[in-house]
């Protein structure tokens, strides 16, 4: 048994060395958002009236679904703070760990680095073991540093030692949990992209399952079953800063141990470069559709893009399912009606829908970036010269990927609109109209196009910096959530991403000038990127 793990510690040190930039950046960002926002928020909600308005909003079913539960009626600032932020910190650290685990296991295997390491006197399970140890180290640092920083900044605002530590621990444990889940997917899938895709899907399901548990609950002190099924839901019920319950953290830690054990067991029985999805003998000749640069691009992107379009439909359906409950809720609670609805012509359901469409639009960024950044990974993997050394111009090949990115932006937003409408029709007595779903969703296209423009620009001009696109997505998620939550902030933070310029239909009126400007910016960035790509050296 011991020889299976030989050399693990040396490999761990090596992995931590490889992490010295990426993980440190993540750690700084996470710690900043977990502790750095405290002064900002205390300023914002220092006033009792403002705080009361926030509490009412957070207690509405829409916000419970979107943001998670608020415990003890938000009596303390610390409790309010964790109700607003912890969920998003969990998701962010989860995403970080998906990439971290894949990077050190399946992605290395794909690039034939694993076999070089395995030829050295290291054990069969050492790479996975080292990756798990690396994840433990990174997440422990995040947990401890966040805890300490929250305490340091928040002590004067009623954030106590135990609550701060629990808050950090919840983050660290969830990060580790997602690392373990990703480790399992890295054994099951044959490609790193497959593993990343499944892990993201898992994260989304975990988010959605907890919505069902958190939706219609009187706070009885116990954890609803549907919530307990989702590790995110479970950790939110640690009631940080309210009653500080450590049991959920320990429970998630236990599931993590099980997931790690499964990953090790799978890794032990499988061969290198193999997964558990068997490969059938393929075609001896290519179909006509493959035989063009665009055909090749489509073939390479087909599966993930189609999966994401269906995935977005599914997410939209699950969001839409909440709309029915809101109608019922409305009938008995006039207070919420008057609070939420600014324009009496617009129903609360529509107001809620327009808020969740923002989330859907940000999810659409994922397939869009997969398509627009594919060419960069082709270049990194040394496959680009096969195409460019033949009679294919750079602009034509890159243009094909760009075209697919634009096409999937339309397909993904449309699938979201359709999903929302489909479930609204089935759960609501007087369903929201299709034209509402369609307009409120498709209006995000110009913002998505700016993201495509940014991706094309970076691939064409600064290929090493393409990670900025993913950072932009995370940042947009963050700003939107804050922009919508706290109107006084949306003024400047919201306007730092393209999504901030998109009106919430039908509440806001359409600003054609802004939409036109976004489209124009997208077109310019794309054109510059394509042009720059003609001029630069290919790297291997």
């Amino acid at each position, binding site marked *: 048994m011991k020889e299976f793990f030989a050399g693990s510690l040396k490999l761990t040190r090596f992995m931590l060395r490889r992490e010295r930039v990426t993980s440190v950046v993540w750690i700084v960002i996470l710690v900043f958002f977990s502790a750095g926002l405290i002064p900002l928020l205390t300023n914002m909600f220092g006033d009792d009236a403002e705080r009361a308005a926030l509490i009412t909003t957070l207690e509405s079913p829409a916000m419970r679904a979107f943001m998670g539960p608020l415990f003890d009626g938000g009596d303390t600032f610390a409790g309010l703070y964790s109700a607003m932020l912890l969920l998003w910190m969990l998701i962010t650290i989860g995403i970080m760990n998906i990439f971290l685990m894949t990077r050190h296991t399946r992605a290395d295997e794909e690039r034939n680095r694993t076999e070089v390491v395995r030829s050295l006197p290291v054990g069969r399970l050492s790479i996975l073991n080292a990756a798990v140890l690396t994840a433990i180290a990174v997440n422990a640092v995040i947990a401890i540093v966040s805890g300490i920083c929250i305490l340091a900044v928040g002590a004067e605002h009623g954030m106590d030692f135990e609550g701060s530590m629990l808050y950090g621990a919840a983050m660290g444990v969830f990060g580790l949990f997602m690392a373990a889940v990703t480790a399992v997917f890295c054994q099951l899938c044959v490609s790193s992209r497959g593993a990343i895709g499944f892990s993201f899907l898992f994260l989304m399901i975990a988010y959605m399952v907890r919505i069902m548990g958190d939706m219609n609950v009187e706070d009885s002190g116990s954890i609803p079953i549907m919530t307990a099924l989702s590790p995110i839901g479970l950790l939110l019920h640690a009631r940080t800063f309210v009653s500080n319950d450590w049991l959920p953290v320990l429970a998630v830690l236990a599931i993590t141990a099980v997931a790690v054990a499964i990953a090790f067991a799978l890794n032990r029985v499988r061969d290198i470069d193999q997964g558990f999805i068997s490969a059938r003998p393929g075609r001896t*000749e290519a179909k006509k559709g493959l035989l063009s640069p665009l055909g090749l691009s489509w*073939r390479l992107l087909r599966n993930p893009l189609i999966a994401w379009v269906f995935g977005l439909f599914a997410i939209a359906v699950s969001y839409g399912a909440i709309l029915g409950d809101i109608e019922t809720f409305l009938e008995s609670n006039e207070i919420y009606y008057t609070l939420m609805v600014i324009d009496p012509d617009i129903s609360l359901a529509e107001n809620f829908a327009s808020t969740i469409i923002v989330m859907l639009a940000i999810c659409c960024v994922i397939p869009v970036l997969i398509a627009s950044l594919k060419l960069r990974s082709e270049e990194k993997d*040394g496959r680009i010269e096969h195409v460019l050394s033949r*009679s294919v111009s750079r602009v034509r090949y890159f243009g094909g990927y760009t075209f697919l990115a634009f096409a999937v932006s339309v397909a993904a937003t449309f699938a979201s609109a359709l999903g929302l409408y489909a479930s609204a029709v089935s759960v609501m007595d007087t369903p929201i109209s299709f034209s509402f779903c369609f307009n409120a969703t498709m209006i995000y296209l110009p913002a998505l196009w700016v993201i495509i423009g940014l991706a094309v620009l970076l691939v064409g001009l600064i290929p090493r910096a393409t990670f900025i696109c993913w950072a932009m997505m995370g940042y947009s998620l963050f700003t939107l959530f804050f922009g919508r939550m706290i109107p006084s902030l949306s003024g400047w933070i919201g306007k730092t991403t393209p999504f901030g310029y998109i009106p919430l239909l039908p509440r806001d009126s359409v600003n054609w000038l802004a939409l036109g400007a976004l489209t124009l910016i997208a077109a310019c960035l794309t054109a510059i990127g394509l042009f720059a790509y003609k001029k630069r050296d290919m790297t291997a």
Partner: protein
Amino acid sequence: MSDFSLEITNLTKKFGKFTALDDISLSVKKGEVFGYIGPNGAGKTTTIRVLLGILQATSGGAKVFGMDAWKEATHIHKRIAYVPGDVNLWPNLTGGEVIDLFISLRGSSDKAMREEMLEAFDLDPSKKCRTYSKGNRQKVALVAAFASDADLYLLDEPTSGLDPLMGEVFVQQVQRLKKSGKGIFLSSHILSEVERLCDRVGIIMKGKLMQVGTLDELKQKAAAEDGKLPDSMEDLFMRYYKVSEAV
């Protein structure tokens, strides 16, 4: 139209401060097999990448069929076939699909030739590229190149990873192309292969072109300088290697 398949004039390529190619000039005539030899990292692949228009020259330049390698890449590529030294393929496409794709991206396709090459190189096209060994990936690139009707073949260490039997098939194919008057630019480590196939040879070391000429010319030159005729290609190679190390 020029008489040259390719002409490189005063080509320099820098990556930051590192000079990968230092003032290289050489040319390959139509119907000539040119051997390009040198140790790892000497600049062989960089030269080929400049010829392919994948890298832009820092100064000087390269012409293929009289056209600028950087500016008119797409036109040039219609008439060349390229085999990289390190063949990375798409893991979820089959070998057969990749070969068809490569042939069709160039332009023309000759079904009979494709089958003949698959047979000659003994490659199973129904397997996913993920499952191919290095040698088999190399075969995919070779089959696609040799099944194409090009005027110039750029081959970058094309036999690395092939077994001796397949190395022999490769030599036969190059001889076939040579007979039909094609230009071939062969970068290689395998000196015996170069000796058998090439009309002229260029030796590159540390980004500098040490010598160009027929094998006999190079040997005579070395004899005139050292007073002793090199016994073999290896001797000649080692001689220039020592010269470049001494600089």
